């Protein structure tokens, strides 16, 4: 792997003493697309909110997040202000609440250009138009003057992406960027993100609950469960040969679009509450393969293939069982 753009080590977050993130190690290389998948509350969003210092003060954050050779955790606000929206940009699920409802969309993008690239006046206006064109907003010259409520959800998300690109980021963190959008509009936005990544060479971290979205967009995928990464692999390998019982369970629980119809294999139970975390593997209480040994300690990564690791002590014996 080339020198990572961002290096996260043992990142832990807790709210009022309850753990939300329980030790994340993750590298993102320049230009690569990494997917983070998992169900509600697994910590996929908290990871990046913590890394960028966007969590409320009630959160306790420990560990290390390095951007190049600079530590971001505990960095002064002036440093973070240059990183956020500059070197790392983030877009969210609901563009309508992320945009300012009483400001014209062009003005909001121009503000990002002023803050991060010191562009003013005519230069900024010209760059706003170029960005609107780049993100595929038709009739840009007119659209820069309208308000968020006058645009559709898909167009608002394009404005958010334009604003994210304004700082020419090296990394775009997209947190469920298409979850609130209709299927055909989701396809448009994913297409756009893929094209922009090729054009600008920026890295992309895609946070999603939708395994299909991540499979299509990312070369590498991390599966999270109860505040930890439990499996990490190239997309093709992960979806063809999942190794962690939770990943296998997630894929079996998902209805298919093609092929013979089968009964869904639901994972029994629910995710553990933060105040009731199992002592060892957090998935053990729901896992069909769990043994007493699973409760002994939090399992570390076991290599299971090229660039493929799974945090399960039974991974080798499970490989013998035909799927």
């Amino acid at each position, binding site marked *: 792997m080339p020198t990572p753009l961002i290096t996260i080590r043992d990142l832990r977050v807790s709210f009022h003493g309850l753990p939300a993130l329980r030790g994340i190690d993750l590298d993102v290389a320049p230009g690569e697309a990494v997917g983070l998948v998992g169900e509600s509350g697994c910590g996929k969003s908290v990871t990046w909110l913590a890394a960028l210092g966007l969590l409320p003060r009630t959160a306790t954050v420990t560990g290390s997040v390095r951007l190049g050779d600079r530590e971001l955790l505990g960095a002064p606000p002036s440093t973070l202000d240059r990183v956020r929206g500059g070197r790392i940009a983030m877009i969210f699920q609901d563009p309508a609440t992320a945009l300012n409802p009483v400001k014209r969309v062009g003005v909001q993008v121009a503000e990002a250009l002023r803050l991060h690239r010191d562009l003013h006046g005519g230069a900024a206006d010209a760059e706003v138009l170029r960005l609107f064109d780049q993100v595929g907003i038709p009739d840009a010259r007119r659209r820069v003057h309208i308000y968020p409520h006058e645009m559709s959800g898909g167009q608002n998300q394009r404005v958010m992406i334009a604003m994210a690109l304004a700082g020419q980021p090296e990394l775009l963190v997209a947190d469920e960027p298409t979850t609130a959008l209709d299927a055909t509009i989701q*396809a448009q936005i994913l297409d756009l993100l893929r094209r922009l990544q090729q054009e600008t060479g920026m890295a992309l971290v895609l946070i999603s609950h939708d395994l299909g979205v991540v*499979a299509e967009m990312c070369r590498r995928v991390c599966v999270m469960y109860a505040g930890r990464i439990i499996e990490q692999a190239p997309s093709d390998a992960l979806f063809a040969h999942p190794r962690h019982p939770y990943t296998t369970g997630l894929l079996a629980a998902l209805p298919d*679009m093609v092929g013979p119809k089968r009964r869904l294999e639901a994972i029994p139970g629910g995710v553990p509450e933060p105040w009731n975390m199992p002592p060892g593997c957090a998935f053990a209480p729901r896992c069909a393969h769990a043994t007493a040994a699973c409760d002994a300690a939090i399992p570390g990564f076991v290599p299971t293939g090229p660039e493929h690791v799974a945090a399960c002590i039974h991974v080798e014996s499970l490989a013998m069982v035909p799927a």
Partner: protein
Amino acid sequence: MSLLSLDGVSRVYATRRGLFGRPVPVRAVDHVSFSVAPGRTLGIVGESGCGKSTTGRVALGIERPSEGHVMFEGAPMPAPGTPGWRHMRARLQLVHQDPLGAMDRRLTVAAQVEEPLEIHGIGDKTERRDRVAALLRDVGLRADLAQRHPHELSGGQRQRAVLARALATDPALLVADEPVSALDVSIQAQVINMLTDLQEARGIAMLFISHDLKVVRQISHEVAVMYLGRVVEQGDPEAIFADPLHPYSRALVSAIPVPGPRRIERVVLTGDPPNPADRPSGCAFHPRCPVAVAACAQVVPELRHAADGRLVACHLVPEASLLKAA
């Protein structure tokens, strides 16, 4: 015989453009016809604003159709609010996306499941208590959860409680509007399996409304794809999702991200779904359609039988009878 049938149903609302604008009619549902047989599931798919939820409300009798007829168990749907309609509502139940919004936060789960039994005067106090316990068992809720309040349950448990309440009056038809969309994948699978099991055990018919094509395929015996108030394709889910004939169904099916190689080449549509208040002429899909011809802008295509028996509303899909003649 069909349990529920809609015949040429339209629902028109009046909206104003701006504060002092003239009222503009909006056809949320436009000439929709279908029927649901006992024990079967009709899935309705489409994007925001396609009229799928309004169709569900008309099917429940909560809203009167502006045109056309709704028949339930062989009789016309009574007007909402009438004693006849209230009586019928025991046979027709709704489950929607947000279980917390559908529940009374001050009442325990058991009290909420019992409420419809009281309203419809079913059983005495002891019988009702036994029935509530049986219902909670049927939907897989532990007995100790009966005395909890909605905020003390997880999302999946709440949706099970809402289902128990909907099943209390032993309905013949369940209208389920995005019932699993707010749930995580592993919980969603639990609820989907439960719905299919309950359908098998009780012979309930379902109108299953969802934007999630994978879930609809899993649960439906028949599927209708809607666009801007009209059904554009209807038939066997296997046939439609494997080889959609209407250009919109094709774009919709191809837009679903799937792990692994895709079977249908992706069609990325340009533009946004149009405003129902500003419906394009002819085929409402023509401004976004990659294969539209001149006639599409002028003539509204009717639903016709295509070669394999499914219904398609597109000028470019040949009609079955014409194929046979040729």
